[in-house]
Protein backbone atom coordinates (compact mmCIF):
# COMPACT_ATOMS: atom_id res chain seq x y z
CA UNK A 1 0.00 0.00 0.00
CA UNK A 2 0.99 3.62 -0.32
CA UNK A 3 3.01 5.17 2.46
CA UNK A 4 0.31 7.78 3.20
CA UNK A 5 -2.92 6.07 4.22
CA UNK A 6 -6.29 7.87 3.95
CA UNK A 7 -7.61 8.51 7.45
CA UNK A 8 -10.98 10.08 8.23
CA UNK A 9 -12.09 12.20 11.18
CA UNK A 10 -15.73 11.66 12.13
CA UNK A 11 -17.20 15.14 11.59
CA UNK A 12 -20.43 15.08 13.58
CA UNK A 13 -19.34 17.69 16.14
CA UNK A 14 -16.25 18.69 18.12
CA UNK A 15 -12.51 19.07 17.52
CA UNK A 16 -12.39 17.85 13.92
CA UNK A 17 -10.03 20.42 12.41
CA UNK A 18 -7.23 19.83 14.93
CA UNK A 19 -7.21 16.07 14.28
CA UNK A 20 -7.08 16.65 10.51
CA UNK A 21 -4.03 18.88 10.99
CA UNK A 22 -2.26 16.41 13.30
CA UNK A 23 -2.92 13.48 10.93
CA UNK A 24 -1.44 15.36 7.98
CA UNK A 25 1.63 16.25 10.02
CA UNK A 26 1.91 12.58 11.00
CA UNK A 27 2.12 11.58 7.33
CA UNK A 28 -1.48 10.61 6.46
CA UNK A 29 -4.00 11.95 3.97
CA UNK A 30 -6.89 13.19 6.07
CA UNK A 31 -10.55 13.90 5.30
CA UNK A 32 -13.57 14.90 7.37
CA UNK A 33 -16.12 12.06 7.37
CA UNK A 34 -19.64 13.46 6.95
CA UNK A 35 -21.42 10.57 5.25
CA UNK A 36 -21.54 6.85 4.59
CA UNK A 37 -19.59 7.34 1.33
CA UNK A 38 -16.80 9.11 3.21
CA UNK A 39 -16.73 6.32 5.80
CA UNK A 40 -16.42 3.66 3.12
CA UNK A 41 -13.46 5.46 1.57
CA UNK A 42 -11.16 5.66 4.59
CA UNK A 43 -8.58 3.17 5.91
CA UNK A 44 -8.75 4.43 9.47
CA UNK A 45 -11.06 6.67 11.49
CA UNK A 46 -10.53 9.18 14.30
CA UNK A 47 -13.45 9.86 16.66
CA UNK A 48 -12.67 13.34 17.98
CA UNK A 49 -13.39 15.03 21.27
CA UNK A 50 -16.65 16.88 21.71
CA UNK A 51 -19.88 16.03 23.51
CA UNK A 52 -20.44 12.29 23.36
CA UNK A 53 -24.21 12.73 23.92
CA UNK A 54 -24.42 14.98 20.86
CA UNK A 55 -22.23 12.72 18.72
CA UNK A 56 -24.40 9.77 19.62
CA UNK A 57 -27.63 11.59 18.70
CA UNK A 58 -26.26 12.92 15.41
CA UNK A 59 -24.83 9.51 14.47
CA UNK A 60 -28.24 7.91 15.08
CA UNK A 61 -30.14 10.64 13.17
CA UNK A 62 -27.82 10.40 10.19
CA UNK A 63 -27.97 6.61 10.10
CA UNK A 64 -24.25 6.31 10.83
CA UNK A 65 -24.20 4.38 14.10
CA UNK A 66 -24.78 0.91 12.57
CA UNK A 67 -22.30 1.49 9.69
CA UNK A 68 -19.74 2.68 12.25
CA UNK A 69 -20.25 -0.48 14.31
CA UNK A 70 -20.03 -2.61 11.18
CA UNK A 71 -16.83 -0.88 10.05
CA UNK A 72 -15.30 -1.43 13.48
CA UNK A 73 -16.39 -5.09 13.46
CA UNK A 74 -14.66 -5.68 10.12
CA UNK A 75 -11.40 -4.33 11.55
CA UNK A 76 -11.30 -0.66 10.52
CA UNK A 77 -8.66 0.93 12.80
CA UNK A 78 -10.14 3.64 15.02
CA UNK A 79 -8.66 6.18 17.43
CA UNK A 80 -10.91 7.98 19.91
CA UNK A 81 -9.87 10.96 22.06
CA UNK A 82 -11.99 11.96 25.07
CA UNK A 83 -15.59 11.71 23.78
CA UNK A 84 -14.13 9.39 21.13
CA UNK A 85 -12.85 7.08 23.88
CA UNK A 86 -16.39 6.97 25.29
CA UNK A 87 -17.77 6.09 21.85
CA UNK A 88 -15.30 3.18 21.54
CA UNK A 89 -15.79 1.73 25.05
CA UNK A 90 -17.84 -1.41 25.61
CA UNK A 91 -19.20 -0.12 28.93
CA UNK A 92 -19.94 3.49 29.96
CA UNK A 93 -20.97 4.82 33.38
CA UNK A 94 -22.84 8.09 33.86
CA UNK A 95 -24.24 8.10 30.33
CA UNK A 96 -27.80 8.92 29.33
CA UNK A 97 -29.98 5.84 28.83
CA UNK A 98 -30.68 6.71 25.19
CA UNK A 99 -27.00 7.17 24.33
CA UNK A 100 -25.60 4.74 21.72
CA UNK A 101 -21.95 3.78 21.29
CA UNK A 102 -19.72 2.15 18.69
CA UNK A 103 -17.95 -0.02 21.22
CA UNK A 104 -15.09 -2.41 20.48
CA UNK A 105 -12.59 -1.80 23.28
CA UNK A 106 -13.14 -4.06 26.30
CA UNK A 107 -13.03 -1.28 28.88
CA UNK A 108 -15.43 0.42 31.27
CA UNK A 109 -15.16 4.22 31.22
CA UNK A 110 -16.78 6.90 33.34
CA UNK A 111 -17.94 10.12 31.64
CA UNK A 112 -16.67 13.43 33.05
CA UNK A 113 -14.83 11.37 35.68
CA UNK A 114 -12.16 13.99 36.39
CA UNK A 115 -14.89 16.55 37.12
CA UNK A 116 -16.26 19.68 35.55
CA UNK A 117 -14.32 22.27 33.54
CA UNK A 118 -12.94 23.91 36.70
CA UNK A 119 -11.07 20.60 37.29
CA UNK A 120 -9.81 20.25 33.69
CA UNK A 121 -6.00 20.21 33.53
CA UNK A 122 -2.87 19.51 31.57
CA UNK A 123 0.15 17.47 32.66
CA UNK A 124 3.08 15.51 31.24
CA UNK A 125 2.50 11.77 30.89
CA UNK A 126 4.62 8.76 30.02
CA UNK A 127 2.93 7.00 27.10
CA UNK A 128 4.15 3.55 26.00
CA UNK A 129 5.43 3.10 22.49
CA UNK A 130 5.71 6.73 21.40
CA UNK A 131 9.38 7.14 22.29
CA UNK A 132 11.18 10.24 23.50
CA UNK A 133 10.05 12.53 26.24
CA UNK A 134 6.81 12.67 28.22
CA UNK A 135 3.64 13.60 26.32
CA UNK A 136 1.80 16.89 27.02
CA UNK A 137 -1.71 15.68 27.83
CA UNK A 138 -4.71 18.05 27.95
CA UNK A 139 -7.72 16.72 29.89
CA UNK A 140 -11.06 18.51 29.37
CA UNK A 141 -14.06 17.23 31.37
CA UNK A 142 -12.32 13.98 30.64
CA UNK A 143 -13.42 10.36 31.10
CA UNK A 144 -11.21 7.74 32.70
CA UNK A 145 -10.93 3.98 32.35
CA UNK A 146 -12.25 2.02 35.33
CA UNK A 147 -11.83 -1.57 34.14
CA UNK A 148 -9.85 -3.22 31.35
CA UNK A 149 -10.34 -6.64 29.79
CA UNK A 150 -7.47 -9.10 29.32
CA UNK A 151 -7.02 -8.18 25.64
CA UNK A 152 -6.49 -4.51 26.39
CA UNK A 153 -3.04 -3.00 26.55
CA UNK A 154 -2.65 -0.07 28.96
CA UNK A 155 -0.53 2.65 27.29
CA UNK A 156 -0.60 5.30 29.99
CA UNK A 157 -1.58 5.93 33.58
CA UNK A 158 -1.33 9.08 35.66
CA UNK A 159 1.94 8.84 37.61
CA UNK A 160 1.45 11.11 40.61
CA UNK A 161 -1.02 13.14 42.61
CA UNK A 162 -4.50 12.25 43.87
CA UNK A 163 -5.38 10.43 40.63
CA UNK A 164 -2.18 8.35 40.51
CA UNK A 165 -2.71 5.01 38.80
CA UNK A 166 -5.73 6.14 36.76
CA UNK A 167 -5.71 4.60 33.27
CA UNK A 168 -5.92 7.24 30.53
CA UNK A 169 -4.71 5.57 27.29
CA UNK A 170 -5.39 2.07 25.94
CA UNK A 171 -5.05 -0.04 22.82
CA UNK A 172 -6.85 -3.21 21.75
CA UNK A 173 -5.71 -4.43 18.33
CA UNK A 174 -6.49 -1.71 15.79
CA UNK A 175 -8.41 0.37 18.33
CA UNK A 176 -6.68 3.18 20.26
CA UNK A 177 -8.22 5.52 22.84
CA UNK A 178 -7.05 8.38 25.06
CA UNK A 179 -8.87 10.29 27.83
CA UNK A 180 -6.90 13.36 26.78
CA UNK A 181 -6.60 15.47 23.61
CA UNK A 182 -3.33 14.95 21.70
CA UNK A 183 -4.81 17.03 18.86
CA UNK A 184 -4.65 20.20 20.98
CA UNK A 185 -0.91 20.12 21.64
CA UNK A 186 0.89 20.05 18.30
CA UNK A 187 2.72 16.91 19.50
CA UNK A 188 1.92 14.36 16.80
CA UNK A 189 3.49 11.22 18.31
CA UNK A 190 0.16 9.58 19.21
CA UNK A 191 -1.26 10.38 15.77
CA UNK A 192 1.91 8.90 14.26
CA UNK A 193 1.31 5.74 16.31
CA UNK A 194 -2.21 5.57 14.90
CA UNK A 195 -0.98 6.10 11.33
CA UNK A 196 1.37 3.12 11.93
CA UNK A 197 -1.56 1.01 13.20
CA UNK A 198 -3.54 1.89 10.05
CA UNK A 199 -0.60 0.92 7.83
CA UNK A 200 -0.21 -2.34 9.74
CA UNK A 201 -3.89 -3.33 9.47
CA UNK A 202 -4.48 -2.11 5.91
Amino acid sequence: MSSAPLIGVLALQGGVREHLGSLVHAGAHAIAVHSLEDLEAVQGLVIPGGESTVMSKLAIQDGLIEPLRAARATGLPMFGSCAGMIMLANRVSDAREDQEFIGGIDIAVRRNAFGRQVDSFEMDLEVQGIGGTAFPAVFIRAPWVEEVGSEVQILSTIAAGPRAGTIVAVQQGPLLATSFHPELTGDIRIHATFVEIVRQYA
Partner: protein
Amino acid sequence: MSVEPLVGTDRVKRGMAEMLKGGVIMDVVTAEQAKIAEEAGAVAVMALERVPADIRAQGGVSRMSDPDMIDGIINAVSIPVMAKARIGHFVEAQVIQSLKVDFIDESEVLTPADYTNHIDKKKFTIPFVCGATNLGEALRRINEGAAMIRSKGEAGTGDVSNAVTHMRTIRKEINRLSTMAEDELYVAAKELQAPYDLVVEVARLGCLPVVLFTAGGIATPADAAMMMQLGADGVFVGSGIFKSGSGVASNEDALRRAKAIVRATRHFNEPDVIAEVSRGLGEAMVGINVADIPVHHRLEDRGW
Protein backbone atom coordinates in the same frame (compact mmCIF):
# COMPACT_ATOMS: atom_id res chain seq x y z
CA MET B 1 3.92 21.64 30.99
CA SER B 2 4.51 19.86 34.22
CA VAL B 3 4.40 16.53 35.97
CA GLU B 4 1.86 18.11 38.32
CA PRO B 5 -1.62 18.82 36.96
CA LEU B 6 -2.08 22.48 35.89
CA VAL B 7 -5.64 23.84 35.84
CA GLY B 8 -6.96 26.93 34.05
CA THR B 9 -4.21 27.19 31.41
CA ASP B 10 -4.96 28.84 28.06
CA ARG B 11 -4.80 25.44 26.39
CA VAL B 12 -7.31 23.92 28.79
CA LYS B 13 -9.65 26.93 28.48
CA ARG B 14 -9.46 27.31 24.70
CA GLY B 15 -9.58 23.53 24.27
CA MET B 16 -12.92 23.42 26.07
CA ALA B 17 -14.31 25.85 23.45
CA GLU B 18 -12.85 23.70 20.64
CA MET B 19 -14.92 20.75 21.88
CA LEU B 20 -18.14 22.76 21.43
CA LYS B 21 -17.54 23.39 17.72
CA GLY B 22 -20.30 22.42 15.32
CA GLY B 23 -22.76 22.52 18.18
CA VAL B 24 -25.70 24.57 19.43
CA ILE B 25 -25.70 26.22 22.87
CA MET B 26 -29.21 26.91 24.13
CA ASP B 27 -30.54 29.46 26.65
CA VAL B 28 -32.59 27.79 29.40
CA VAL B 29 -34.30 29.25 32.45
CA THR B 30 -35.38 26.04 34.24
CA ALA B 31 -34.04 22.53 34.83
CA GLU B 32 -36.91 21.20 32.72
CA GLN B 33 -35.85 23.33 29.75
CA ALA B 34 -32.24 22.21 30.26
CA LYS B 35 -33.35 18.58 29.95
CA ILE B 36 -35.26 19.37 26.75
CA ALA B 37 -32.16 21.09 25.35
CA GLU B 38 -29.97 18.08 26.20
CA GLU B 39 -32.54 15.72 24.72
CA ALA B 40 -32.52 17.79 21.51
CA GLY B 41 -28.72 17.51 21.18
CA ALA B 42 -27.52 20.84 22.60
CA VAL B 43 -23.75 20.83 23.10
CA ALA B 44 -24.16 23.01 26.22
CA VAL B 45 -26.84 25.05 27.96
CA MET B 46 -26.74 28.68 29.10
CA ALA B 47 -28.46 29.08 32.48
CA LEU B 48 -30.11 32.47 32.88
CA GLU B 49 -33.01 33.99 34.76
CA ARG B 50 -34.89 35.45 31.80
CA VAL B 51 -34.32 34.90 28.09
CA PRO B 52 -33.27 38.05 26.21
CA ALA B 53 -36.74 38.54 24.65
CA ASP B 54 -38.23 38.82 28.16
CA ILE B 55 -35.39 41.04 29.42
CA ARG B 56 -36.08 43.32 26.49
CA ALA B 57 -39.85 43.31 27.13
CA GLN B 58 -39.68 43.73 30.91
CA GLY B 59 -36.74 46.11 31.19
CA GLY B 60 -35.10 46.88 34.55
CA VAL B 61 -31.64 45.82 35.71
CA SER B 62 -30.75 42.33 34.62
CA ARG B 63 -28.24 40.34 36.69
CA MET B 64 -26.58 36.98 37.27
CA SER B 65 -29.04 34.13 37.95
CA ASP B 66 -29.95 32.77 41.38
CA PRO B 67 -27.36 30.14 42.44
CA ASP B 68 -30.21 27.73 43.31
CA MET B 69 -31.44 27.93 39.76
CA ILE B 70 -27.92 27.38 38.37
CA ASP B 71 -27.40 24.40 40.72
CA GLY B 72 -30.73 22.95 39.59
CA ILE B 73 -29.64 23.08 35.97
CA ILE B 74 -26.17 21.65 36.70
CA ASN B 75 -27.83 18.72 38.48
CA ALA B 76 -30.37 18.17 35.69
CA VAL B 77 -27.98 17.60 32.77
CA SER B 78 -24.62 15.97 31.99
CA ILE B 79 -23.61 18.39 29.20
CA PRO B 80 -21.60 21.56 30.01
CA VAL B 81 -23.44 24.43 31.71
CA MET B 82 -22.68 28.09 31.05
CA ALA B 83 -23.94 31.14 32.96
CA LYS B 84 -23.91 34.87 32.36
CA ALA B 85 -22.19 37.57 34.40
CA ARG B 86 -22.65 41.30 33.87
CA ILE B 87 -19.90 43.07 31.91
CA GLY B 88 -17.21 44.07 34.44
CA HIS B 89 -18.90 42.30 37.36
CA PHE B 90 -15.98 40.18 38.55
CA VAL B 91 -17.75 39.11 41.75
CA GLU B 92 -20.67 37.62 39.81
CA ALA B 93 -17.99 35.76 37.83
CA GLN B 94 -16.32 34.57 41.06
CA VAL B 95 -19.68 33.27 42.28
CA ILE B 96 -20.36 31.49 39.00
CA GLN B 97 -16.94 29.82 39.15
CA SER B 98 -17.54 28.73 42.75
CA LEU B 99 -20.76 27.04 41.57
CA LYS B 100 -18.58 24.96 39.18
CA VAL B 101 -20.25 26.28 36.07
CA ASP B 102 -18.17 25.23 33.02
CA PHE B 103 -18.05 28.53 31.09
CA ILE B 104 -18.87 32.18 31.91
CA ASP B 105 -20.51 34.49 29.38
CA GLU B 106 -19.56 38.09 30.17
CA SER B 107 -22.66 39.30 28.45
CA GLU B 108 -24.13 42.51 27.10
CA VAL B 109 -27.57 40.89 27.50
CA LEU B 110 -27.30 41.68 31.22
CA THR B 111 -27.02 45.26 32.46
CA PRO B 112 -23.32 46.25 32.55
CA ALA B 113 -21.75 46.69 35.99
CA ASP B 114 -18.75 48.68 34.77
CA TYR B 115 -18.92 51.04 31.81
CA THR B 116 -15.12 51.25 31.50
CA ASN B 117 -13.52 47.90 32.32
CA HIS B 118 -14.29 44.33 31.42
CA ILE B 119 -13.51 41.47 33.82
CA ASP B 120 -9.83 40.43 34.06
CA LYS B 121 -10.59 36.95 32.77
CA LYS B 122 -7.01 35.67 33.20
CA LYS B 123 -7.61 35.52 36.96
CA PHE B 124 -10.18 32.76 36.58
CA THR B 125 -9.78 28.99 36.25
CA ILE B 126 -12.89 28.51 34.11
CA PRO B 127 -13.03 29.95 30.59
CA PHE B 128 -14.99 33.00 29.38
CA VAL B 129 -16.90 33.72 26.19
CA CYS B 130 -17.44 37.37 25.21
CA GLY B 131 -19.41 39.11 22.50
CA ALA B 132 -17.85 41.21 19.76
CA THR B 133 -19.12 43.33 16.88
CA ASN B 134 -15.76 43.65 15.13
CA LEU B 135 -12.19 42.33 15.17
CA GLY B 136 -10.74 45.01 17.44
CA GLU B 137 -13.34 44.28 20.11
CA ALA B 138 -12.74 40.51 19.76
CA LEU B 139 -8.98 40.96 20.21
CA ARG B 140 -9.41 43.23 23.25
CA ARG B 141 -11.53 40.50 24.87
CA ILE B 142 -8.98 37.79 23.98
CA ASN B 143 -6.24 39.99 25.44
CA GLU B 144 -8.23 40.10 28.70
CA GLY B 145 -8.35 36.28 28.65
CA ALA B 146 -11.50 35.33 26.72
CA ALA B 147 -11.21 31.72 25.45
CA MET B 148 -14.07 32.02 22.98
CA ILE B 149 -15.72 34.85 21.02
CA ARG B 150 -19.28 35.14 19.76
CA SER B 151 -20.84 37.72 17.50
CA LYS B 152 -23.13 39.94 19.55
CA GLY B 153 -25.98 40.24 17.10
CA GLU B 154 -29.02 41.81 18.74
CA ALA B 155 -30.30 39.39 21.36
CA GLY B 156 -33.99 38.87 21.99
CA THR B 157 -35.18 40.17 18.64
CA GLY B 158 -35.35 37.16 16.33
CA ASP B 159 -33.73 39.53 13.80
CA VAL B 160 -30.53 37.92 12.49
CA SER B 161 -29.28 40.97 10.59
CA ASN B 162 -26.88 42.26 13.25
CA ALA B 163 -25.33 38.81 13.78
CA VAL B 164 -24.72 38.73 10.03
CA THR B 165 -23.17 42.20 10.06
CA HIS B 166 -20.87 41.33 12.97
CA MET B 167 -19.76 38.00 11.51
CA ARG B 168 -19.09 39.54 8.11
CA THR B 169 -17.20 42.44 9.70
CA ILE B 170 -14.96 40.17 11.78
CA ARG B 171 -14.20 37.96 8.78
CA LYS B 172 -13.53 40.92 6.50
CA GLU B 173 -11.13 42.51 8.99
CA ILE B 174 -9.29 39.18 9.42
CA ASN B 175 -8.96 38.82 5.65
CA ARG B 176 -7.62 42.35 5.42
CA LEU B 177 -4.90 41.62 8.00
CA SER B 178 -3.88 38.46 6.13
CA THR B 179 -3.13 40.47 3.00
CA MET B 180 -1.14 43.23 4.68
CA ALA B 181 2.63 43.68 4.59
CA GLU B 182 4.36 43.02 7.92
CA ASP B 183 5.29 46.66 8.39
CA GLU B 184 1.63 47.70 7.96
CA LEU B 185 0.47 45.66 10.95
CA TYR B 186 1.67 48.30 13.43
CA VAL B 187 -0.81 50.83 12.09
CA ALA B 188 -3.46 48.11 11.75
CA ALA B 189 -3.07 47.41 15.48
CA LYS B 190 -3.46 51.09 16.21
CA GLU B 191 -6.59 51.33 14.06
CA LEU B 192 -8.13 48.20 15.54
CA GLN B 193 -7.23 49.41 19.06
CA ALA B 194 -5.91 45.91 19.67
CA PRO B 195 -2.59 44.53 20.97
CA TYR B 196 0.06 44.28 18.26
CA ASP B 197 1.05 40.68 19.12
CA LEU B 198 -2.52 39.45 18.69
CA VAL B 199 -2.88 41.35 15.42
CA VAL B 200 0.27 39.62 14.10
CA GLU B 201 -1.06 36.24 15.26
CA VAL B 202 -4.39 36.73 13.48
CA ALA B 203 -2.60 37.89 10.29
CA ARG B 204 -0.49 34.72 10.38
CA LEU B 205 -3.32 32.28 11.25
CA GLY B 206 -6.01 33.81 9.02
CA CYS B 207 -8.49 33.30 11.85
CA LEU B 208 -8.94 34.17 15.51
CA PRO B 209 -6.71 32.22 17.95
CA VAL B 210 -9.93 31.10 19.69
CA VAL B 211 -13.24 29.60 18.58
CA LEU B 212 -15.75 32.03 17.00
CA PHE B 213 -19.45 31.31 17.55
CA THR B 214 -22.45 33.36 16.51
CA ALA B 215 -25.25 34.75 18.69
CA GLY B 216 -27.98 37.35 18.79
CA GLY B 217 -31.23 37.01 16.85
CA ILE B 218 -30.87 33.45 15.53
CA ALA B 219 -34.44 32.08 15.53
CA THR B 220 -34.77 29.46 12.77
CA PRO B 221 -32.83 26.48 11.34
CA ALA B 222 -32.09 28.57 8.23
CA ASP B 223 -30.68 31.39 10.40
CA ALA B 224 -28.34 28.93 12.11
CA ALA B 225 -27.21 27.40 8.81
CA MET B 226 -26.59 30.81 7.26
CA MET B 227 -24.38 31.85 10.17
CA MET B 228 -22.42 28.59 9.81
CA GLN B 229 -21.97 29.24 6.08
CA LEU B 230 -20.70 32.71 6.97
CA GLY B 231 -17.93 31.06 8.99
CA ALA B 232 -19.25 30.59 12.53
CA ASP B 233 -17.83 27.59 14.42
CA GLY B 234 -21.17 27.05 16.19
CA VAL B 235 -24.36 28.74 17.31
CA PHE B 236 -25.92 30.24 20.45
CA VAL B 237 -29.70 30.26 20.40
CA GLY B 238 -31.30 32.46 23.03
CA SER B 239 -35.01 33.16 22.97
CA GLY B 240 -35.55 31.29 19.69
CA ILE B 241 -36.36 27.89 21.17
CA PHE B 242 -38.58 28.36 24.21
CA LYS B 243 -40.41 31.39 22.77
CA SER B 244 -42.94 31.02 19.97
CA GLY B 245 -45.00 33.52 18.00
CA SER B 246 -47.71 33.32 20.66
CA GLY B 247 -45.44 33.57 23.72
CA VAL B 248 -44.13 30.54 25.59
CA ALA B 249 -43.62 27.50 23.36
CA SER B 250 -45.00 24.12 24.48
CA ASN B 251 -42.35 21.58 25.44
CA GLU B 252 -43.11 19.50 22.33
CA ASP B 253 -42.74 22.52 20.05
CA ALA B 254 -39.56 23.62 21.81
CA LEU B 255 -38.05 20.14 21.47
CA ARG B 256 -38.93 19.98 17.77
CA ARG B 257 -37.50 23.44 17.13
CA ALA B 258 -34.35 22.70 19.14
CA LYS B 259 -33.74 19.44 17.26
CA ALA B 260 -34.29 21.22 13.96
CA ILE B 261 -31.71 23.89 14.77
CA VAL B 262 -29.17 21.23 15.89
CA ARG B 263 -29.65 19.35 12.64
CA ALA B 264 -29.47 22.47 10.48
CA THR B 265 -26.23 23.48 12.22
CA ARG B 266 -24.66 20.09 11.51
CA HIS B 267 -25.91 20.01 7.87
CA PHE B 268 -25.48 23.72 7.20
CA ASN B 269 -24.42 23.15 3.60
CA GLU B 270 -27.34 20.87 2.70
CA PRO B 271 -30.49 22.85 1.73
CA ASP B 272 -32.53 19.62 1.44
CA VAL B 273 -31.91 18.81 5.09
CA ILE B 274 -32.64 22.40 6.18
CA ALA B 275 -35.90 22.31 4.20
CA GLU B 276 -36.89 19.02 5.83
CA VAL B 277 -36.25 20.20 9.39
CA SER B 278 -37.96 23.56 8.76
CA ARG B 279 -41.34 21.93 7.97
CA GLY B 280 -44.20 22.35 10.44
CA LEU B 281 -42.23 24.12 13.16
CA GLY B 282 -45.05 26.57 13.81
CA GLU B 283 -44.66 30.29 14.24
CA ALA B 284 -41.15 31.40 15.17
CA MET B 285 -40.54 33.69 18.13
CA VAL B 286 -42.05 37.12 17.89
CA GLY B 287 -39.77 39.30 15.82
CA ILE B 288 -38.59 42.83 16.49
CA ASN B 289 -36.79 44.64 13.69
CA VAL B 290 -33.49 45.96 15.02
CA ALA B 291 -34.14 49.15 13.06
CA ASP B 292 -37.25 49.78 15.19
CA ILE B 293 -35.29 49.66 18.46
CA PRO B 294 -34.07 53.05 19.66
CA VAL B 295 -30.28 53.15 19.50
CA HIS B 296 -29.89 53.56 23.27
CA HIS B 297 -31.91 50.32 23.81
CA ARG B 298 -29.65 48.23 21.60
CA LEU B 299 -27.52 45.67 23.41
CA GLU B 300 -24.76 45.50 20.79
CA ASP B 301 -23.33 48.83 21.96
CA ARG B 302 -22.69 47.49 25.46
CA GLY B 303 -19.03 46.53 25.78
CA TRP B 304 -16.11 48.51 24.49
